[in-house]
């Protein structure tokens, strides 16, 4: 071979497909980040476009904002706790107590995910509302002049509706986690002398912790931002952050106030999401 052969520079390898990031990034920027940036910008500017930090401080210290924040946190925490308890009990029964039709029941509960949230509230109104079946029945049975049951129009009515709507979000990951629990472990525990409650506590639940965290976090996120249920029930004095944003923006046209509250709501959601990712990372979910 000749020594005069030129050393050819390695061909530059083109990385095919790296430009495919552009369309989704542009779409995200257009539909999500730009509107978000507008909201954040609006939170700092008054209606004439002048920076107004004093308004932010005023809103954050206002009674209506603090009440809405407390209501939002109370309702979402209570509803998530309720979802976790109801979801866990239902999942344990569906996964570990053999009965005919358990699969059908699981699928039926799943269908709640497909339904609009206000539908459950509407059903609750028919059942537990002032003119609902329960109150009408009680009034007729005991000759009462006024409806005796009015919990639906309180914080607890909202919580109950949210528990009903969001329990499937806990149930589904729990059932998936339970299906992976080795039945041999349960049987070994039982033979070793463990009663069912101990088996649930020490064998099954540790295996379900990632699913509980994932489902619970999702539930918390959804309930913090829940709008339809709270609006539809129309409970007196039960104003949450999303409802307050709606009221300020649509009914009062106080856009800066609405945007300040929206930023807080977004920060709350992102904070919860960050907490979930942190916990999930620590647990290796």
């Amino acid at each position, binding site marked *: 071979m000749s020594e005069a052969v030129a050393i050819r520079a390695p061909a530059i390898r083109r990385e095919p497909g790296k430009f495919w990031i552009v369309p989704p990034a542009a779409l995200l920027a257009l539909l999500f980040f730009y509107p978000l940036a507008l909201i954040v910008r609006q939170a700092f500017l008054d209606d004439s476009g002048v920076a107004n930090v004093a308004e932010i401080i005023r809103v954050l210290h206002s009674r209506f904002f603090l009440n809405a924040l407390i209501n939002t946190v109370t309702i979402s925490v209570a509803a998530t706790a309720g979802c976790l308890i109801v979801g866990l009990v239902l999942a344990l029964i569906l996964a570990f107590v053999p009965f005919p039709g358990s699969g059908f029941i699981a699928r039926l509960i799943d269908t709640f995910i497909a339904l609009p949230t206000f539908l459950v509230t509407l059903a609750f109104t028919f059942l537990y509302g002032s003119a609902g079946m329960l109150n009408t029945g009680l009034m007729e049975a005991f000759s009462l002049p006024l409806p005796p049951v009015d919990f639906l129009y309180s914080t607890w009515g909202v919580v109950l509706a949210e528990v009903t709507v969001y329990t499937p979000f806990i149930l589904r990951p729990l059932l998936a986690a339970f299906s992976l629990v*080795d039945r*041999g*472990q349960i*049987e*070994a*525990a*039982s*033979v*070793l*002398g*463990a*009663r069912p409650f*101990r088996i649930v506590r*020490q*064998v099954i639940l*540790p*295996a379900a912790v990632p699913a509980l965290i994932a489902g619970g976090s999702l539930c918390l996120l959804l309930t913090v931002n829940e709008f339809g249920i709270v609006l539809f029930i129309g409970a007196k004095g039960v104003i949450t952050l999303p409802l307050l944003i709606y009221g300020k923006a649509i009914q009062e046209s106080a856009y800066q106030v609405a945007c300040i509250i929206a930023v807080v709501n977004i920060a709350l959601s992102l904070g919860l999401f960050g907490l979930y990712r942190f916990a999930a990372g620590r647990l290796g979910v």
Partner: protein
Amino acid sequence: MSAVAFTGTSVMDIDAAKVRGAGSNVHFDKVSVAYGAHVVLHPLTLDIAPGEILAMIGPSGSGKTTALRAVAGFVRPASGRIRIGATDVTDLPPYERGLGMVVQNYALFPHMRVEDNVAFGLRAQGADKALIAERVKDALGTVGMSAFARRYPRELSGGQQQRVAIARALAVRPRVLLLDEPLSALDAQIRRNMVEEIARLHRSLPGLTILYVTHDQTEALTLADKIAIMRDGRVCSHGPTTELYRRPPNRFTAEFLGRANLLPVTVEEPVGSKGFATARHGDAVLTGAGRDEKAGDKSLLCIRPQHLSLTADSEHTNRIVGTLREVHWQGELTHLVLDVDGTPVRVSATKLPTALPEPGARVPLFFAPADTSLLPEDAGV
């Protein structure tokens, strides 16, 4: 896997004696199990004596695991009763039966350290902390896993996990230890070691009754005092291991428990005072250990491959001749396959003549009457 062997300890030995005293025999009294109309275990009556290892072996779907699960309390018998010691446990939940169980996939609790796995049963039974610590140390010592107490199951090999599973079962001082295919997930070398170690473990815990379910005849032959061979939900044969191997009562047992050559023969003289009958196979007149065969009965003469020899001596008085078909050298053993009047006959030999005959050659085979067993031609076929 750790090379540490199981070692018996004093506390275990003392408790073993107590277990024997408490009555650890298992009695199946016409126990049947059915799923709807499908009967998976036909009425089974069987006793396992205190301190005995009974191996239930059989092909898949033969009902052996169902029988074990009925003892554990995971399968409800359709009929019959199960007693452990003097207690009728048929209606007791598993956690009140006082058993230990080890299964194929170990079933260790993955989120607990080895020591917590072993302590689980004791905590469930409300034992005090000092006793738990003592028993955990003792059980881990017995299986040679003391150094791994702080590890998680995922940090152990398969063999080590199985040792922990055994320690966990032993820590509660069970009346009966149920072993359901405990070595099936291990590779061949580790399995051989574990079989020997379980045998050593039982020697150090002589009071422990073990019901050992397996499809591996080697495990059963190595470990069991008695064997029950299951087929189609029924016990096909049951008896002391050596007896069942040497004198299989039927064809299925002969062929399932080790390899067997079954020569069709016609009985000429029934069993005499020494327990031997005379039978004819073609031109060969053979002597074999018989039962109650009568002259003229069609029978099968069972000879294990390792009992056939290519050389005659004073004990190997029976002689048949076959045509050599195949020779397979496997290191320690050489397997020969011959055709004896249309019946394939296998020979497993450790020593062979210097000049090995070529395939196609006529080869005489010799065997001792004491190494044979006559069994009915139509039983268990």
